């Protein structure tokens, strides 16, 4: 990691940044949590988010602390939503009902336009859900764009956390890693068309590694076996893939929403840009990028693709400090006492962390409550 590429900030400034994260997270988290559980759980979650904000601002290490937050959010989701389906250990609450699955949303876009059909809709969301969902997605896309996949997605945190659980990759990504990089886009196109043609949740049936239910499985035993085999392959991509390659295999190659967001994310101004003058062509960034979103361009310089989801890993990896957060490729005009604080990086980190923490308030405080109850017996 290059410690000199991102200057450290003072404690006071970092505390102010943390407060700016904490206040909105606690406000919204408290509003959500107070419906069923104590506000103290919301407070704990907001404090955690604020602490992450403090650490990022103080040290400049975006990706390291982001990953801690992101993985904690994903684990909380697993604990509360998924494990509660198996066990009565965790209490059911309104938080148990997943209002939607954003991964499934993209492949059923045409179905929704045609028949107002979504794969998963609970009672509360049936009427207003799609509109609310559309508005929420639009807001998220305008606020953080592709950053969703590295800051807020409640599944991506599993992949991301595991990708850094091993010090070195056992399998090195060869030329096929780039050759197949468009697979999520291909899957998205295919799933849009196939789901539309068959009026079925094709992704949920065949590829989703997170389904803990047989509700949608095919009645035919042979087909069901095939569905289970593909589901296991997807689970393997999610759990073993990152451990073997140090890359987010599921998110990079199998998630149709990642392709969807890569397409629409171009309307968001935040970018990670590379300074060609600082690029020595060492390709450390290419190996470090967990999303296989950086390649070596013909001139020997790093080139960032649309699949970059602004995780910040390349900022820490580049020995020349050639990567930085920008707004449409430009830095904010410097000048004045606040110039060091008013950077594209700080604006993006604040937006992404706050949004991710508010969004995960739907399950993270409740997961804390579950764990406290579990430990208390």
């Amino acid at each position, binding site marked *: 990691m290059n410690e000199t590429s991102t200057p450290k900030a003072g404690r006071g400034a970092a505390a102010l940044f943390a407060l700016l994260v904490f206040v909105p997270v606690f406000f919204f988290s408290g509003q959500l949590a107070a419906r069923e559980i104590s506000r103290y759980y919301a407070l704990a979650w907001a404090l955690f988010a604020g602490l992450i904000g403090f650490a990022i601002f103080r040290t400049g290490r975006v990706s390291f602390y982001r990953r801690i937050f992101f993985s904690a959010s994903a684990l909380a989701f697993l604990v509360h939503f998924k494990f509660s389906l198996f066990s009565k250990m965790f209490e059911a609450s309104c938080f148990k009902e997943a209002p939607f699955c954003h991964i499934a949303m993209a492949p059923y876009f045409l179905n929704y336009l*045609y028949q107002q059909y979504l794969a998963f809709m609970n009672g509360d969301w049936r009427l207003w859900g799609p509109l609310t969902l559309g508005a929420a997605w639009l807001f998220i896309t305008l606020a953080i764009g592709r950053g969703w996949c590295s800051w807020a997605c409640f599944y991506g945190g599993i992949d991301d956390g595991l990708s850094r659980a091993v010090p070195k990759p056992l399998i090195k990504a060869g030329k096929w890693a780039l*050759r*197949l990089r*468009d*697979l999520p*886009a*291909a*899957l998205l*196109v*295919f799933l849009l*068309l*196939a789901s*539309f*043609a068959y*009026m079925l949740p094709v992704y949920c049936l065949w590829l989703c590694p997170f389904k803990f239910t047989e509700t949608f499985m095919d009645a*035919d035993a*042979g*087909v069901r076996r*095939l569905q289970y085999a593909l589901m296991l392959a997807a689970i393997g991509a999610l759990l073993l893939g990152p451990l073997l390659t140090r890359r987010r295999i599921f998110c990079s190659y199998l998630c149709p929403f990642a392709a969807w967001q890569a397409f629409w994310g171009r309307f968001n101004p935040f970018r990670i840009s590379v300074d060609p003058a600082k690029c020595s062509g060492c390709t450390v960034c290419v190996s470090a990028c967990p999303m296989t979103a950086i390649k070596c361009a013909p001139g020997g310089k790093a080139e960032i693709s649309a699949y970059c989801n602004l995780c910040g890993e390349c900022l820490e990896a580049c020995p020349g400090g050639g990567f930085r957060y920008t707004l449409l490729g430009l830095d904010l005009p410097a000048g004045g006492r606040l110039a060091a604080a008013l950077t594209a990086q700080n604006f993006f980190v604040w937006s992404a962390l706050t949004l991710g923490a508010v969004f995960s308030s739907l399950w993270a405080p409740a997961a804390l409550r579950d764990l406290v109850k579990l430990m208390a017996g």
Partner: protein
Amino acid sequence: MPALFSEGFLLGLSTGFYCLASCLPLLAPYLLSEGRAAWKFNFYIFLQFTGGRFAAYMLFALLASLAGQAGQYALPAWVLPASMLACGLLMAGLAAFRVSGFKGPCLLDAAAGTAARRLPIVLGFVTGINVCPPFAAGLLRLMDLADILKGFSYFGGFFASTSLFIAPVLLGTPWLGTRANEIGRLTLLVAGLWYAALGLKGLV
């Protein structure tokens, strides 16, 4: 005869969305993979596809009319899944060939190139023999008519109106670039595997 053409035309017009839904997963990946930023070239692909569909419809018109004359309907059940399997394997094979960038002997390359160029006819034929609800309604009508020429006229009308629903797929193609082609090849591969699996399931 014009009345029967109109009848088929109206049936297709009222139910063309079904045709669009069943044709798109086959036609769109191919267009995305092999299309160019030129109307003329993409239109030629579309013509081949509709030609394949037309041939399938006429074949069905003939078979349904003959079946009606014989008082029975006896299209072998394996025809559709077998065609689907063959078509899926062809799609997947050609896509894999393109994605891998494999360079074989000249004869193999030429054969693959010819197969890729003619694939839309096969895709059109497979969608043509895919029995969807409106198509089945048309078949029953033909068996009732039991007249080959009337059958051609009826299915000619059905073909003409359903083609209107599929034609808009060409609208986006003049903007196809290399990147879209790369995504299209992978889509063709996935779609090919899907249809091969569907065909296999139908046969087993």
